[in-house]
């Protein structure tokens, strides 16, 4: 088991190298760099621009730049953001915390809704309830995320019940810690709902399908033939087995936390990693983009690994390797 994890971690190294190289290369495809805007600005002296270019190594050919970046990155120095004038690592970790809060809240909503509801409608297959939930969930799958986000903003705007966008009230600086926390929760509700409800539908379909599959298995029939109560048959025998494909899905969603929330973060002004990355790409903030990409890729790979480990814990047939 431990050896398996170590091996998987080692496999991540060449992958991350490849990803970082490609990301670096792609950013060189577009003409210009961070200083392009400055060059067009008559108030910035060309000498200063050249000094900046030299300082950040932008005057060297890009493969050389990449090697420099890589050497620093291996020493856990991800460089400075041009735009924020702050170490990239510090920026990323601060924003990642915010993304994490949003992602966990939305996952609690989507998984907390989808799992029991999926089991429930699978057991009552073809009932009215099943049909209604199915239609709603198809609508949920097809509704674009930004549409839900706009709806939520409209709701907040019209009712004044919840804050519109952002993570803290402007005056939050003067709040008590407790007040600060509740204020953050109030800001969290809408983006978390938008993300959670959006993600719920897919999980629900998967849970229902998987549950229907296992309910038709002979071991479920056999469990009934032993006189077990229907609750026990459903939860201990059918559900335990129906959960396995969902664990894989959970791993993917864990891995996709970052990209998944990027859109909502941007529309609803949640100061997370997704928003940071988009801003950085637009500003051609090279090292910030690189740091975020590599961080995102590492999260993706770690998420997959976590899912595989969970699956091994849940399914004895996979434990054998």
């Amino acid at each position, binding site marked *: 088991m431990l050896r398996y994890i170590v091996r998987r971690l080692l496999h991540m190294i060449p992958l991350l190298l490849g990803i970082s190289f490609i990301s670096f290369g792609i950013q060189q495809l577009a003409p210009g760099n961070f200083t392009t805007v400055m060059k067009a600005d008559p108030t910035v002296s060309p000498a200063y621009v050249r000094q900046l270019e030299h300082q950040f190594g932008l005057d060297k050919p890009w493969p050389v730049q990449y090697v420099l970046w890589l050497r620093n990155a291996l020493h856990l120095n991800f460089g400075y953001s041009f735009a924020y004038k702050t170490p990239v690592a510090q920026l990323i970790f601060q924003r990642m915390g915010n993304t994490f809060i949003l992602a966990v809240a939305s996952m609690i909503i989507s998984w907390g809704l989808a799992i029991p509801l999926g089991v429930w409608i699978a057991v009552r297959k073809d009932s009215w309830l099943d049909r209604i939930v199915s239609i709603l969930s198809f609508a949920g799958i097809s509704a674009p995320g930004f549409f839900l986000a706009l709806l939520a903003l409209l709701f907040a705007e019209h009712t004044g019940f919840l804050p519109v966008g952002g993570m803290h009230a402007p005056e939050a600086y003067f709040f008590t810690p407790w007040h600060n926390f509740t204020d953050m929760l109030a800001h969290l509700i809408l983006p978390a709902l938008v993300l959670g409800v959006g993600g719920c539908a897919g999980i629900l379909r998967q849970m229902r399908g998987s549950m229907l599959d296992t309910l038709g298995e002979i071991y479920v*029939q056999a469990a009934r033939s032993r006189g*077990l109560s229907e609750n026990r048959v459903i939860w201990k025998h059918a559900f335990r087995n129906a959960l396995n494909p969902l664990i894989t899905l959970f791993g993917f969603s864990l891995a996709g936390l970052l990209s998944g929330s990027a859109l909502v973060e941007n529309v609803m002004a949640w100061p997370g990693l997704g928003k940071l990355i988009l801003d950085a790409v637009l500003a051609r903030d090279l090292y910030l983009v690189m740091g975020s990409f590599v961080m995102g890729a590492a999260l993706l790979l770690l998420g997959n690994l976590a899912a595989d480990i969970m699956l091994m814990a849940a399914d004895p047939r996979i434990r054998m390797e």
Partner: protein
Amino acid sequence: MHSPILKVQNLHTWFETPTGTARAVDGVNFELYQGETLAIVGESGSGKSITALSLMQLVPEPAGYIEKGSIFYKNRDLLDLTWEEMRALRGKDIAMIFQEPMTSLNPVLTVEKQIVEAMQVHGTATGAEARKRAVDMLNKVGIRSPQQVVRQFPHELSGGMRQRVMIAIALSNNPQILLADEPTTALDVTVQAQILDLLASLQKELGMSMLLITHDLGIVARVAQRCCVMYAGQIVEEAPTSELLKNPQHPYTRGLLASLPSRARRGQELYTLEGVVPPPTRWPKGCRFALRCPNRMDICKNVLPGETALSPQRRVSCHLYNSDSAEAAVPLENPS
């Protein structure tokens, strides 16, 4: 013989399907006596499994349902019981084992958990006592290293071992009746014989009654005292096994026997039954075997034959033996 422990009368179990009502079990009568093994034999699709599931009231819902009939056990009609009353009987009074040992155990639970659960739910044994009894049961079904096997998962066991575990689970509450639905069909031939002998000896030892479902007459000869032949949702012939094998009456039974490889003489071509079982949504109006029957008469196409008692222990549903319908009721030679 003593009174029957289970008496099935006029059982009809139907399915609503897109192509119409499938009358999978369509008027089945039989009695199971205390301490005997009764076989139900018939081709695949004749309704054997659905008969067994009907006894358990576990017919796949919502398509399947018991249309009518009665199932008497201990002077009560099981079909009158509430769901909870029936649940208390399942696995306690009437236990069942299935055809596919590969898929009839839960893959994510250890053998121990599955045996212990079966006892716990009926309060037969709990905790350490149940765990000890689980090992005893595995011993009883001929598993040599029960201490090790209890901790294993189903996928770590061979097919034969899994079927032994299924038997151990089924017998853990000392049931009165064991329903064995093709318990050896999915196994290698050598393992088949072992499992059959095991079932036969356990049945005697525990004094329980066994309903053995199979499509293989060779198996019937090995373990069952009496035998019902099922065709197209009905029982067409019933007889003590030895008599049935020596002197089959229904043309379908004769065909089944004649097509047994062990019965063929050297150098002779193996007899095969012509045609297939008609679909259960469209049973013919008359005798359901008529289309395939070598002894077909005019009446067979239009009138479903009733039961004729040939002796206190034998009955057959065929116009050949019905004095009203068959002028030409000459006993026939075996085919071939």
